[in-house]
């Protein structure tokens, strides 16, 4: 079999896998108060929520859905919705901004990804 024929499957698995992992990560962090894998502040929650939505959009646009059951879309969609809801529930109990060294990085990351997400959605709406 030509390895190139497997490429679309690899793309599909990568996109939806990345989307599911991002959503799962946000979901788990939203429920943890201690340890490394938790939301550090509201900027962290915002950055990870926007990341998750960004990957969901990429999965929708770039997955060759002729190769993958559409049920996969509904699965990652449900996971994303659950993770967004969890982040919202966690939001009030988070500090606005943590005082660790990476706080600025998280804020820039959140704003940067938000900018890309909004630009992509705007491009889709304007051209379509």
């Amino acid at each position, binding site marked *: 079999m030509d390895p190139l024929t497997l490429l679309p499957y690899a793309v599909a698995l990568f996109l939806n896998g990345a989307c599911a992992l991002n959503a799962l990560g946000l979901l788990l962090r939203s429920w943890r108060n201690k340890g490394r894998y938790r939301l550090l502040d509201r900027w962290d929650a915002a950055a990870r929520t926007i990341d998750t939505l960004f990957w969901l959009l990429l999965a*929708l*646009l770039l997955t*060759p*859905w*002729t190769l993958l059951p559409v049920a996969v879309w509904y699965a990652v*969609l449900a996971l*994303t*919705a659950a993770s967004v809801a969890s982040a919202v529930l966690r939001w009030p109990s988070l500090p606005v901004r943590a005082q660790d060294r990476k706080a600025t990085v998280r804020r820039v990351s959140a704003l940067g990804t938000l900018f890309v997400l909004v630009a992509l959605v705007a491009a*889709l709406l304007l051209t*379509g």
Partner: protein
Amino acid sequence: MRPAPRTIVVACVAAVLVIAVGIAARPLVPSLSDRESGDPDLLARVRPLLSEGVHDRVGVVEIDGDRTRFAHFGADDHTDYEIGSITKTMTGALLAEAIARGEVAEDTRLGDLVELDGAPAADVTLAELSGHRSGLPRLPGRPSDQITGGLASALGRDPYRHDHDTLVAQVAAAELSDRGESHYSNLGTAVLGYALAEAAGTDYATLLRERLLDPLDMEETFLPASETDLPPDATMGYSERGRRADPWLAQAYAPAGGVRSTPADMERYARALLEGDAPGAEAMEPRWDDGQGGRIGFAWVVDEYDGTEVTWHNGGTGGFSSMIALDREGERAVVMLGNTTTGLELPALELLTGEDS
């Protein structure tokens, strides 16, 4: 700590919003329609040929001597499809017709008809453009064109929405490579159509209508220059990702792939080609090697399949596939049109030359 009721409401609303938008934007993957019509024998032969890939609506025309058979899946004789690059054969016919009328010659230079200010492309001939031997690239080579075209294709948009000024600028900016060798060029065919229209003192759509479509009574064949030219029930195409694809409109690149047609009209075209009655039918005569073991005429490719000489051209747009294949000696032809990007070349060739043909 238990979240406040208001926070719970906001979380539920956020989740519902994500799900609602996700459902509204869900992928719509088509499957071959089970609404079949047409000749039962042809339907039975076509069905297994469509078992692979993604199909939705498919129309099949089979001509055998005086007899024509149709087979449709989710469609009928008058369903419209983008025929994509089969349009190039019509542009080739217009070139042959223009030569017959004395408006141009095979070796007329592009620069004699289009203002190219001494660009390398000004020196190529109309015959070279039609036979894909001009050395022009497949697509415009300017980085801005490549970025916008690639992005449009990736998003299921029409990558060819350029006006004639832009087309001429793209051709003027193009470098020639391997001129005289066969390299498929949408850019070359697009500017060929523009040049032929200039030579005739009209536009491409009018030229095609007056010289090919009207003489063959192809009243259902048209070139939609904008969305408003499309009928309300125009057939929707699906991309290789299973997403709805924007229609490709017939603007400056119309001569390379902008025509919409129906099985009924394509039957008229194929029959006229077989009978030699089509204007510019001499475009089918093979003139040069295509570099892949076959021969090429004015856009038409001539290859041998299973001992049969087949004159053919395929087509593909963002959401449609098409194939026309002629066995001129056996007076047989097959046309296949579909509204997905799954290629129809092999099914059409199998119908034309296979054991069950």
